């Protein structure tokens, strides 16, 4: 709780800076209007209120964004195309589907890698090298190719999400499944345990902290994948589509509201994973 005051101060400073920046960035438009109307340019005191509530500001003020966020979250029916709940849900469902696919595939491959030396030596260097590749660049291609194969909607976006969340999980799980030390593995060998038994009774339980650490990275990456996956389809639905249509039509308030909605979704998803992590580790007696 000691951290609350400093965080509050930092957030207050950021908000204050934001208002100052909004006045500074939105002022040219006011001056421009004054010149066109051949009126006196407004004094600074007159200027400030005019920059606070423009329709298409260069930088919307925090209260405009908050108002738009509340309006499009609670003020619309959930099925409306203007509702952020509708768009948010589309993005979240693609994120979750991709996250489950990516995690499942990552864990399976990790199990294969720790049991097969040839696989370890051939696949692992590529998996690590692939972290340095900007995978998001292939997003438009996946969408269009899947589209031409007749697959539309959720699945192509989920595949991009799966791609992004797969690598953190793979790398984390290989580390985690290898975390039991020699002594523990030897003990199981003296019990005559099979590989499968060693996997379930020793390796999987001891990999849990690693799994959750990579799940947190993975779900954040999944969300980024789903949002970017919505861009090339030409702004149909989802938070990414809101960003894109906002940028086409100069609706800055809408962009910022979608951005904050995405941030809230990301924070919520990571919080859910952390909550599951705390519960699981506590039940397993691994809580730090």
């Amino acid at each position, binding site marked *: 709780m000691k951290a609350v005051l400093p965080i509050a*101060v*930092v957030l207050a400073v950021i908000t204050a800076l934001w208002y100052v920046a909004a006045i500074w960035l939105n002022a040219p438009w006011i001056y421009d209007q004054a010149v066109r109307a051949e009126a006196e340019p407004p004094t600074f005191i007159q200027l400030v209120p005019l920059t606070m509530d423009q329709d298409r500001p260069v930088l919307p003020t925090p209260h405009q964004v908050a108002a738009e966020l509340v309006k499009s979250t609670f003020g619309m029916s959930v099925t409306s195309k203007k509702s952020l709940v509708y768009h948010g849900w589309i993005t979240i469902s693609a994120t979750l589907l991709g996250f489950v696919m990516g995690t499942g595939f990552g864990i399976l491959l990790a199990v294969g890698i720790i049991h097969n030396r040839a696989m370890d*030596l051939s696949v692992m260097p590529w998996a690590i090298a692939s972290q*340095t590749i900007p995978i998001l660049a292939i997003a*438009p291609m996946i969408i*269009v*190719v899947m589209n*031409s194969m007749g697959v539309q909607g959720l699945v192509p976006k989920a595949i991009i999400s799966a791609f992004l969340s797969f690598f953190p999980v793979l790398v984390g799980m290989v580390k985690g499944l290898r975390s039991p030390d020699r002594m523990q593995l030897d003990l199981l060998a003296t019990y005559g345990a099979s590989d499968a038994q060693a996997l379930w009774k020793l390796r999987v339980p001891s990999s849990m902290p690693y799994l959750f650490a990579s799940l947190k990275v993975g779900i954040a990456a999944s969300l980024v994948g789903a*949002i970017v996956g919505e861009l090339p389809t030409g702004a149909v639905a989802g938070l990414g589509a809101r960003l894109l249509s906002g940028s086409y039509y100069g609706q800055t308030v809408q962009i910022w509201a979608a951005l904050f909605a995405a941030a809230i979704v*990301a924070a919520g998803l990571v919080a859910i994973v952390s909550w599951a992590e705390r519960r699981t580790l506590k039940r397993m007696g691994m809580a730090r």
Partner: protein
Amino acid sequence: MIWGIAAFVIWAGAWGLNVRLSHSALVQSRAGRLVVPAIFGVTVLLVWECTVRGLQVPGVILPPPSAIGARIAQEGPTLWADFRQTFLKGALRGYAIGCTAAFLTAIAIDRSPFLQRGLLPVGNFVAALPIVGIAPILVMWFGFDWQSKAAVVVVMVFFPVLVNTVAGLKATEAMQRDLMATYSASYWQTLLKLRLPAALPFVFNGLKIATTLALIGAIVAEFFGSPIVGMGFRITAEVGRLGLDMVWAEIAVAALAGSAFYGLVALIETRMTFWHPSQRR
């Protein structure tokens, strides 16, 4: 049919070779550790080629690697122009500005525990957010050319580097700081001679994460608007024309550039943090 059999034979043969290699003594050597993944990579390319030819997959769905290679050789100047626009102009400049700014900010807030307690949770939070979302806003502010891409990169790399540098500046032990105090070293002397060197492994960790983010930021920002050159622009444009071999060529260039950039930073890291336990052989 021939192609299918060829794909299977290549796969089985290479896999058998790898299994034998990975149980032989050769793997202990450095060369062996490179050979096995290299065989795997070549196998994937060959099987891809054979499958695409065997099943006669249309080029608009998945072009064979040979077509992609031919496209790279043929479109060299275009690829180079795109690379220069996106990587050298957008990503590299943004990376340099963002990392410098984050490093200086970390040193600035180093003396204030209050600011650290406030900024670090916020920084950690922001680092997990889908920051690419600010791309449309920055493209609106800074125009379509590389400036807006560099701005996106600055914002994307800032927080990982900041959080890692602040963590690194805490990495010294009380004993070491006490020693500097008995030498009556000033704050700046302690910072330059003890704490910054000790922070380097953490700083480089942040810098390495930032290399990938920089390239992603520069490419994705181009999806929101760009001049008629650039890797992100080329990808969206060629996807629209179904020129998938060109898309794959761009992706190959992006992958090479990303890996080379990461490798360069990792190389500088081994040179500068040779004393760290993780670098010992």
